[in-house]
């Protein structure tokens, strides 16, 4: 594996392997010395064209625990905003010795261009591109699900037969896209819920069941419900009439949460709009995985950086 750009291109064996390596990485977090020497002498650049403190810190933390040298390049307010192109920026970073570039960009396909345009030769990790994909988020979600379901026996397992409901702005969500492909590849049964206005063209061809109403999807008694962040400005573009109406039909309200099966997990990629797409009682319950998702994010990103930069042949599991 040279790049991680999408989950759509991951086969089942590779996906399970990333999750398994992440288990090893998680185990090191319990040791007294958390650092591994795996990427000593390697340079990982975090290239963020879009603000995202959580994702950036997660990648920084992952790279540092692997002993890599970490450069974080926040492109806002830099030469990039003065007209330097994506190509020039990337070539500059490679000239500084980057072995891997973790890129977050507001435009869909930016990571793909960096990997395939022939501009540079470094490994590329997509840390979220526009409304396209966010593969490490989906991997950490799958990791979180697998741990909750299989516990200590998680290694080697996929998610066969696990029913996951994803709710909200599918149209603009890179998290939803990456989760759809990955969960389906891992054998899960994926249900998507959104008003018609927020369903992307071609959704009928995706490996999912689509519901217009949340209650219809919850009636399937899912193992997990993943609530997506809804952006308030979508109202202005007439995707839905009001926050109140959205919350009433598509929000995980206290009533809906109470009616769920007792072991249904509640997931959210963060940051949450409490009271809009998710009620506090759901977000703060023991069935919520929100904080585990953050912790697991570091393990997943360690696994991805390790597999891309250190190379498969050097792996010592």
């Amino acid at each position, binding site marked *: 594996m040279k790049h991680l750009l999408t989950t759509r291109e991951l086969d089942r064996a590779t996906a399970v392997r990333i999750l398994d390596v992440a288990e090893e990485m998680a185990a090191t977090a319990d040791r007294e010395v958390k650092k591994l020497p795996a990427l000593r002498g390697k340079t990982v650049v975090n290239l963020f064209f879009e603000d995202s403190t959580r994702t950036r810190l997660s990648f920084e933390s992952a790279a540092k625990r692997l002993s890599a040298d970490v450069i974080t390049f926040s492109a806002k307010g830099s030469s990039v905003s003065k007209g330097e192109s*994506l*190509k020039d920026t990337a070539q500059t970073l490679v000239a500084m010795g980057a072995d891997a570039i973790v890129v977050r960009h507001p*435009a*869909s396909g930016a990571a793909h261009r960096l990997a395939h345009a022939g501009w540079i030769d470094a490994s590329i990790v997509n840390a979220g591109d526009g*409304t*396209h994909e966010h593969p490490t988020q989906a991997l950490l979600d799958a990791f979180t699900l697998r741990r909750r379901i299989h516990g200590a026996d998680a290694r080697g397992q996929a998610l066969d037969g696990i029913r996951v409901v994803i709710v909200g702005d599918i*149209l603009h969500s890179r998290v939803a896209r990456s989760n759809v492909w990955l969960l389906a590849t891992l054998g899960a049964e994926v249900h998507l819920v959104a008003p018609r206005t927020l369903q992307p063209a*071609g959704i009928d061809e995706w490996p999912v069941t689509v519901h217009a109403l949340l209650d219809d999807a919850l009636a399937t008694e899912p193992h997990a419900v993943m609530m997506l962040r809804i952006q308030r400005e979508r109202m202005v573009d007439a995707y839905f009439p009001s926050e109140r109406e959205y919350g009433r039909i598509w929000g995980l309200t206290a009533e809906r949460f109470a009616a769920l099966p007792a072991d249904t997990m509640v997931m959210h990629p963060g940051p949450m709009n409490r009271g809009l797409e998710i009620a506090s009682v759901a977000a703060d319950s023991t069935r919520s995985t929100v904080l585990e998702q953050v912790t697991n994010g570091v393990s997943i990103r360690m696994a991805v950086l390790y597999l891309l930069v250190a190379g498969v042949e050097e792996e010592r599991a």
Partner: protein
Amino acid sequence: MSGLIVRGARLLGGETGDIRIVDGRIDAVGSVDPVAGDRVIDADGLVALPGLVDLHTHLREPGGEASETVLTGTRAAAAGGFTAVFAMANTSPVADTAGVVEQVEALGRQHGYATVRPIGAVTVGLEGRQLAELGAMAASRAQVRVFSDDGHCVADPLIMRRALEYVATIGGVIAQHAQEPRLTEGAQMNEGPLSGELGLAGWPAVAEESIIARDVLLAEHTRSRLHVCHVSTAGSVDVVRWAKKRGISVTAEVTPHHLLLTDETARDYDARFKVNPPLRSAEDVEALRAAVADGTIDIVATDHAPHPDERKECAWAEAAFGMVGLESALSVVQHTLVDTGMLDWAGVARVLSTTPAAIGGLTGYDAPLAVGAPAHLTLVDPSASRTWSTDELRGRSRNTPYTGITLPCRVIATVHGGVPTVLDGQLVAADTVAAEAGGR
């Protein structure tokens, strides 16, 4: 007087013959004996077409000289077999006054590679609010007859109605860029399964079709003439077909790229394939080809849109819309329409020369290759084949979408008003062309 003899070309009726050109006009067609001093072009195996006319070219001058100029754009045109181009108005300053259109027209005449007919803006600054001085542009030395806000849709129905009515009095035509602006805010590619997967904002077919439907009804109501730029969807073809059947005065164009490429090209996020209107589905491509063959779509026009590398070597959403097309147009037309048996060479002459000239009010193209007509002609080798690359381009920009595709056809010679602009497949030097053209 010495002339230029084209020896043994395949003429449009399919027969082989010679063409003698003297003093900028066609002097004789058939079996012609050279006179001492005549220059002879051996056209054995070549098809003689009337000089091609592009109703939709972006020459970028004034203001966009980093991408193209009148000189570089008309050199690209000549290399592609064109002898006349209609230059779109979205320059800087916008071609919305007599001064700008006269400047562009004069530059074309000075360089001599092709006749440059400026297209005037419909509204001041292409802003869609106030009519530009259409009458002044029509009465200027540039004799503007085609008006377009191309790049922008004349979206306000009242402005569109008034423009249609107003140009009828000066014998003009409104060339509409059919794109409902609200339905395409932020649009990046064809709305379909791939846009949903790639996370690129969709440009739905209905945004084009709804404007064309509105405009043909306005044209009917005002008894005016409408031309629809770059038709890209099967639904648009249906609307135009309906309008023509109803007797509405509407003509339509399609670009070469919409006849060949589909939205699948976006899969790699390579912005060379980013164009407006976007590349559509394979079903749309089929419908567009059939529409050219049955005459629903009247012409092929390039929408040649040069951009510097840096406007394409970036993320898709940040890249400019458009692709160059003058050099490749005839090759793509042969590939998609002639080699598929949908159009013969007389048909090519119709969709790439006679009809675009008629729509644009350009004289001298109504009797192709007839004795006495101005000598605008193109000799092409239909048996040629080449793997397309940027080396085939002659303009200033390199944003061709065809790199790596094998395309038929090569332009061997182009003659503009008796002046050779391409000989032996090579552009004639600029000073030679300018001197010969100036001597006429």
